[in-house]
């Protein structure tokens, strides 16, 4: 199995079979990503799709660091998942077909590779997967 590293520390719990996003809390107000100096708080793994679109063209590099090119870029869907009682969190989705996404459907946090470095190391990001698919794309 390829060596894997998270895109950054402190964004999601890893390694974990049930990854959670790391938020922070101050005076009852949650923040994702976590703000320095605030109390860490792990967010719920499941929520409902609140809004979405797709990204059909390769984002400019930098800052995007996928190892693809404009020609090999694989479009992805992205949007917000509402974590009940917490926040609406933005992220990439594992499902890229907008016809298979609908507002209100149940989504779950997963951790997936989004690029591979020249030495073969896979870089991991969090993403949201439709709950029926959760686990498949890990």
């Amino acid at each position: 199995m390829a060596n894997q590293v998270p895109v950054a520390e402190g964004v999601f719990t890893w390694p974990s079979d049930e990854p959670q996003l790391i938020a922070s809390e101050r005076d009852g107000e949650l923040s994702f990503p976590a703000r320095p100096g605030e109390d860490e708080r792990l967010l719920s793994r499941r929520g409902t799709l609140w809004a979405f679109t797709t990204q059909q063209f390769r984002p400019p590099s930098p800052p995007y660091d996928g190892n693809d090119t404009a020609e090999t870029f694989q479009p992805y869907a992205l949007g917000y998942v509402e974590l009940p009682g917490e926040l609406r969190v933005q992220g990439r989705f594992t499902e890229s077909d907008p016809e298979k996404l609908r507002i209100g459907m149940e989504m779950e946090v997963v951790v997936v590779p989004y690029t591979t470095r020249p030495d073969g190391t896979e870089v991991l990001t969090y993403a949201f997967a439709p709950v029926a698919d959760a686990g498949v794309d890990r």
Partner: protein
Amino acid sequence: MSAPEVAIVGVGLHPFGRYGDKPALQMGTEAVRDALADAGTEWSRVQQAYVGSHVVSNPDAIIGSLGLTGIPVRGVFNGCATGGTSLQMAAAAIRYGEADVAMAIGFDKHPRGAFTGHPSIVGLPEWYGQVGLFLTTHFFGTKINRYMGLHGISQDTLARVAAKNLRNGEITPHAWRRKAMSVEEIRDSAVVNYPLTQYMYCSPCEGAAAVVLCRADLASSFSSAPVYVRASELRSRRPGAFELQSPSLPLETAPSPSVDASRAAYEAAGIGPEDVQVAQLQDTDAGSELIHMAENGFCADGEQEKWLAEGATEIGGRLPVNTDGGLIANGEPIGASGLRQIYETVLQLQGRAGDRQVPGDPRVGYAHLYGAPGASAVTILSR
């Protein structure tokens, strides 16, 4: 309506588009000279200037070509709301008695492609850009896709907005995009951010615009048809507003700053949306124009479907919107874009808009800007 304090007596434009090696400052200089000629005056009469640009870090350098008269000149940048901010500041300088004559100027020259940069510049972590989330474009797809589901807007209505703006561009001599396209061509073109397609988006480009303002009681010495600034309001986002570049949003929502700026402008002007006869609304994409129709109080959420089907926002319709083709037909040099809206509104209110002139002798015009990271400027003008 209270008595106006500030008048617009001259407008100038360097058409938006692509101009090779031509510097942004030169385009700005030409727009200023165009505006001064329109006002029948000279740079030496101008007592303050507010100059907006994204790519020129010290846009006040424009005085090098206009004349070193020693006046205060201030650089302005406020994202896509820059032009509205420059105008507002110039108007305020006159209202507060700091100047009798002031100018709002904007110019820019952007590289091709979507706006980007480094996430840290706006306080976001590196990873947000690395994984492909630091872009402005997908926000617009996300917001309109949710809005369409909630309020029953079809993709054909999105395409109708772009078709209208390109049709208006076709009859606007200075527009960048002057080729009309059918609703079907626009709808079936490549998807950029679902459900928005290639021809539903504006593009960054180059160009300049300038406005001469003066004390209302001096207006007749410059122009036989002054246009008065009834309101010019800027608002920033409140907690819970759904904005660009937001890795998370609180559950409790707040209206867009467009709603706040619009309400403030109507109140300051003593004018309501029903009085507006021509409107320029930020159309970064076709979906934004639809959303902004409601956020600026012109229709209820969802009524856009009927309005567009009926042609209500066409030049001959109930409320003509983006009569020069808006951002979709003119592109967006950020520093100048808001002043292009003012240029167009002034021409419409003076009956000088040629083939695209709104019929019925319009007296009240409205200009709206919106952009990252959640700022909106609204200007209401009247004869």
